[in-house]
């Protein structure tokens, strides 16, 4: 590999579509979410840049390690989660433009998505707080809840796009949509689309599916002992996760809106991300109250998984 | 010719399994294991029987084409199997003794600390 090639890859990893892009767009989406929510509740709301300010401010604060905590794990957990999210960002193409085009990257994505959640769980667990103990158990149950519908949605897409040859490659899914139209406009995929819209808020952990953090109840659960830079990184993780989930949605269901210009593609994608953020997070957040943990589990395994399974059956019989 | 033996061996195996499933007394369960073994031993030794065959004791000069004798392999297998069965029973009985010392009973339905 020559030096330009290496620099190019470094550019991809650090600037676009990797670290910088994911962080900036993630923070933008988080700010947008807060602003829109405030407007829906007839508040003025914070400026769009507020999450960025929060992040920078937290970075400057002192980090307290409680004496009951295991220091290494406690400090490493947010970084590990962040790393996984940035790698994920590299796997998600900006429509035609992607860094890696493996054969099975949907499964890699599915797996990498669990790492930030596991990092949160292990970090919270290592802090030694009983609130965190309750929080991690809820985080885990949330994860079990949304994993089933998510898996079924991904299988449905793979079957729809690949036919009998099965397609787990996100790049191929996007280029298939460029030829055959967006998956969102295929009637059989509508239930899967709805299911995916409901999976996103649980994955990101926004209300009403934020049982794990539940500020009013268990004081942010796993994050209770965190302060300073590690907390900043965890907050950043949530923001980046917003970007990743919405971008994944955009690629799965609205892929193939390609203009040929990477910059323009990126703008369209961010617009779609913003829309998805509005519908799946802000709107639901504004109109519902937090669920109980057992209701959450039941809801995902019956309603959401049912929607996804309906779609899978429809696709299987050839619609 | 051997049909009776086969039927008997299957009956023995089934009886043994029945004993293991239904009897709560540990000693009876061990007996059931023994009965299953005997049934199988009977079956194996019957598979090698040739009606009218002689004992399979020959040296290389006597062993000509057309010599008629029972198959020696199942007999060897049966011997091995009997030895193994005896070992299993001995082991099981020694465990029953240990169990009786610890639990003061040989009732299977009371020996269930490990469950769930």
């Amino acid at each position, binding site marked *: 590999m020559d030096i330009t090639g290496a620099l190019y*890859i470094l550019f991809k990893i650090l600037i676009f579509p*990797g670290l910088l892009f994911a962080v900036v767009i993630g923070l933008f989406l988080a700010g947008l979410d807060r602003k829109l929510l405030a407007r829906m509740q007839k508040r003025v709301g914070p400026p769009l840049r507020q999450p960025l300010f929060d992040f920078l401010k937290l*970075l*400057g604060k*002192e980090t307290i390690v*409680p*004496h*009951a905590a*295991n220091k290494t*794990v406690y400090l490493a957990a947010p*970084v590990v989660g*962040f*790393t996984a999210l940035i*790698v994920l960002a590299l796997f998600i193409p900006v429509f035609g433009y992607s*860094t890696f085009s493996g*054969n*099975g990257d949907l*499964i890699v994505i599915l*797996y*990498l998505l669990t790492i930030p959640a*596991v990092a949160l769980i*292990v970090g919270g*667990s*290592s802090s*030694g*707080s*009983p609130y965190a*103990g309750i929080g991690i*158990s809820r985080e*885990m149950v949330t994860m*079990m809840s949304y*994993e089933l519908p998510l*898996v079924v949605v991904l299988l449905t897409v793979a*079957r729809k796009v690949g036919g*009998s*040859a*099965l397609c787990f490659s996100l790049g191929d899914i996007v280029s298939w949509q460029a030829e055959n139209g967006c998956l969102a406009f295929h009637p059989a995929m509508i239930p899967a689309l709805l299911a995916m819209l409901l999976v996103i808020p649980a994955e990101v952990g926004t209300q009403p599916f934020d049982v794990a953090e539940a500020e009013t109840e268990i*004081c942010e659960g796993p994050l209770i002992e965190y302060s*300073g830079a590690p907390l900043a990184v965890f907050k950043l993780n949530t923001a980046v996760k917003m970007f990743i989930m919405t971008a994944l949605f955009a690629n799965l269901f609205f892929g193939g809106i390609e203009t040929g210009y990477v910059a323009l593609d990126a703008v369209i994608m961010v617009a779609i991300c913003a829309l998805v953020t509005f519908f799946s997070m802000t709107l639901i957040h504004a109109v519902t109250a937090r669920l109980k943990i*057992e209701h*959450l589990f*039941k809801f995902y395994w019956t309603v959401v998984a049912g929607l996804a399974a309906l779609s899978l059956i429809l696709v299987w019989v050839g619609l | 010719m051997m049909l009776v033996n086969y039927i008997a061996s299957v009956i023995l195996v089934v009886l043994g399994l029945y004993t*293991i499933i239904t009897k709560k007394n540990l000693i009876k*369960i061990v007996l059931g*294991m023994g009965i*299953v*073994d005997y049934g199988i031993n009977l*079956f194996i030794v019957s*598979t090698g029987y040739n009606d009218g065959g002689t004992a399979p004791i020959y040296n290389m000069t006597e062993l000509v084409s057309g010599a008629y004798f029972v198959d020696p*392999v199942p007999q060897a*297998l049966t011997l091995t199997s009997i030895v193994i069965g005896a070992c*299993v029973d001995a*082991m*099981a009985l020694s465990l029953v003794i240990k169990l009786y010392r610890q639990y003061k009973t040989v009732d299977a339905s009371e*020996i*269930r*600390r*490990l*469950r*769930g």
Partner: protein
Amino acid sequence: MSYVHFPVIAVMTLFMGAFLTVVLGKHSRAVRSFLAIAASGIAFVLIAMLVKPVLIDGEIISYWMGNWNPVNGYAIGIGYEVDQLGMFFALLVVSTILLSAVYSLRYIERDSSQEFYYVLFLMLSGSVLGLVLTGDVFNMFIMIEIMTFTAVGLTAFRNTGFGSVEAAFKYLVIGSIGSSFTLFGIAILYGQCHTLNMAQLSAMLSGNHSPATLMAFALMFTGLAVKSYIVPFHTPAADAYTTAPSSISMVFSGMVNKAGVYGIIRLVYIIFRTMDIPAVQTLMVIFGAVTMFIGVTMALAQHDFKRLLAFHSISQIGYVITAVGLCTSLGLTGGLFHAMNHTLFKGLLFLCAGAVLRATGTTNLDQLGGLSKKMPATTVCFLIGAFSISGLPPFNGFASKWLVYQAAYDKAVTTGNFLYVFVTIVALIVSVMTLASFIKVTQAAFFGQLPERLKDVEEVPFLMQLPMWIMSALCVLSGVFYNFVDKYLLVPAVSAALGVSRYIDSMMGSGYAAEKCVTDIQASGVHFSYWNPMVWLALFVIVLCAACLCILTSKGSRGEILEGDGEDGKYATFFSGEKALPSHVGGSDLFWGFKTDWKGYFNIMEGLHSGVVNDYALYVVAAAAIVVVFTFMFMR
């Protein structure tokens, strides 16, 4: 000396070691330790020396005991045949033996009658090694029986402990029912074919099934399934793994149930060559899916560290059986890879449980907590094992589980059968539940509050840490260098399992398979790898950047990382101003949300695992009956 003798010598060494330990090892600890390490080390070296001829050059070693070669196309002697499949399992076996022997040196130093421990241990090792190397079905039965006894003896080794004798008795009853079924099957086969050699049986049975051989198939399948502890034969395994010493639990999950899996693969792929019949595939996939699901849900309900691991062992074997039952080369690759990974990570986890038991004297999760500060090495090893078994990248469980999912869904698409879609989804959900229950152990044992009772706990000695570190390293390496493992271990083993005629020819003389019209199993599916060096480069760069970021932020005067001792309220855990001390969230308190939703299911399951040996025997016999009926209905 030619290497064709090595397999037999390796098995003999272990049995001789057992014998010598009886004679010489009674009084001196040094002697018996030396004998155990020497015997297992020699076996390891001998098997390792076969890697080049068998796995790399692709040779199949056939060896007739006492030089009783086949006469007129009939095998009359006992044959040892080492093909790549057997070699793959033999490597797993000898590695497990060696690591477990090293661990045992310090682990059992406080027990009495140690010489019997080593005798039984070496006999168990020898029998499993013999089982995977032999080419004779009756020899296989003998090895299975020796394996069962010695395993029972070792389960009851700490016979004053809670329930160990009980577990041993149940193991013996269920195990001997399984062995009896196997023996019955072998007897029927002998009656039909008049041979006991696997290669010759394979040549005679291929595509040539009478009701008698179908019966033999059903019985042998059940018998070997009992030995691999798939549901519903898993009940004694859960008890035995819990109560046996941890070094032995590692051996059980690392090689004893692998021996059962090996037997099943040998049975369905080679001896009966029935794997291309869809009914057999369905049978195995259903067994596998049920096993993984019931195993993992039972694990979620456990309060004991080792019992939880035991149910996970069962669940992971479900993955292997499912993948092997798909009969695609991808599925077989995934299954064998997962079997290997299971040996590594489950062995590692059992060793960690042993370390916890030795340090604290209990494995009850409700009484543990906060061990990570006292036992940092064990904690790191445990986390590596837990992440591996949960299938997080880049650990090995990720690679093999991915292959399993991919194979199952591929199978669904190529056959159009919805059953396999269902199985894929079950496999993915089980993976998340596995993660959940390991989070539970992590929280309950290693993190959280340290109970007062465990203030003086110390890390285990280096000799016990050594096998744990080796296995951790292997877990990471086999995940990262997946291509290497695939090329040198999995591809030869898979092609050996599918290439029946080569197996027959090398034992019975070339041309024998063609004469009997045996064809190789046609398995669909292609290999693919997830390995992409760029991904790991990217990971590396980002980790570096993140680390730099952390260092930079922590250097600033205000962003300092502060650590304090217990006196200062600033560093205490937040507990909402209550007077009471923060309480530890124990293992049984986690996941109640999940458990309340599934209360009905858990109640039924707990009722079924009643602990009464009669019930367990009933499950075995009922399942055997189902297999027999299924065989006769769908395999004719």
